[in-house]
């Protein structure tokens, strides 16, 4: 194993999804993402009224890289990590907070939403989501079928010629 990773599936996924949905409704943010520290989107929710989100893969990658960079900075300053980051622009805010050691909660919202309110609700959601992720650590590793490698290789041939 190279790095502990999260496999979010089944009932656990549904619970995380539900927590994100509630957070979205309670705060009025546009987009709500749970991203793992490697930059993969684990789960995402968007408000019905919000415009189409930017490329979520890119958002997740940049958020994770940014978190990695600031964590390295934190280490230099004698901190273990900076658990929370706010980036405020003219029209909106990006708010990122750690969920345990493996994930990041990312919220994107416009100026009509109060940052203080978001923080309060985000904390609540994080403690719930963290509990779900903790349970997952003991979950059995799911098995991939026999022919997975062959199937994927065939697709690879199609894609790369």
């Amino acid at each position, binding site marked *: *194993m*190279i*790095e*502990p*990773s*999260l*496999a*979010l*599936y*089944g009932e656990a*996924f*549904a619970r995380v*999804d539900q927590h994100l949905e509630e957070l979205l409704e309670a705060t009025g943010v546009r987009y709500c993402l749970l991203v*793992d*520290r*490697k*930059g*993969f989107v*684990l*789960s995402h929710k968007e408000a019905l009224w919000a415009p189409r989100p930017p*490329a979520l*893969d*890119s958002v997740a*990658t*940049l958020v994770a*890289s940014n978190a*990695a*960079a600031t964590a*390295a900075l934190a280490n230099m300053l004698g901190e273990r990590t900076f658990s929370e980051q706010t980036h405020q622009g003219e029209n909106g805010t990006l708010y990122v907070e750690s969920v345990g050691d493996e994930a990041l909660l990312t919220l994107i919202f416009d100026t009509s939403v109060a940052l203080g309110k978001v923080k309060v609700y985000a904390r609540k959601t994080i403690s719930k989501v963290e509990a779900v992720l903790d349970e997952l650590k003991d979950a059995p*590793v*799911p*098995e*991939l*079928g*026999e*022919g*997975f*490698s062959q*199937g*994927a*290789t065939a*697709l*690879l*041939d*199609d*894609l*790369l*010629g």
Partner: protein
Amino acid sequence: MSTINFAAREINCKIVYYGPGMCGKTTNLKHVFGKVPGHLRGEMVSLATEDERTLFFDFLPLDLGTVQGFKTRFHLYTVPGQVFYNASRKLILRGVDGIIFVADSAPNRLRANAESMRNLRENLAEHGIDISEVPIVIQINKRDLPDALPTEMIRAVIDPHKRYPVHEAVASGGSGVFETLKVASRLVLEKLSKNR
């Protein structure tokens, strides 16, 4: 280890292009971006300086399609090759599933190749990753240089025990780019099914 999302039924793998400064990592990625049909790739993110040297990383998501009901996706990253950017280079290696080491064929970059390989070992070790556990493919790039060193000579410096598959390439013209990526992806996929 790859991230498997069973709810969304997605498998994500991370492949990193490593190598000395100016060896052609970003050029590799740009070629892939240019040749893969739009619906199979996402946006390319480049964090580069004004003169187009990679500052933090380049990123390109690539969709393979659905295998046994799992949407399989590769995330391709490059690192900044310049020696003094090691802090950010190390960050990109986090959680890597496969590495493509791009070596430069120019005679005056032979030492840089060796140093970059040593740096890769050090950085992997700092992440607690055993180098023998990560699939690595070597791409010997810039074969079109008039004074390009022999492949064997470059290999002797970066891979003396001949552990890794080697491919020749001219990334600026696109030759060898897909071949290298294919070998690396295949190794990652094989490891994925073996581990589980």
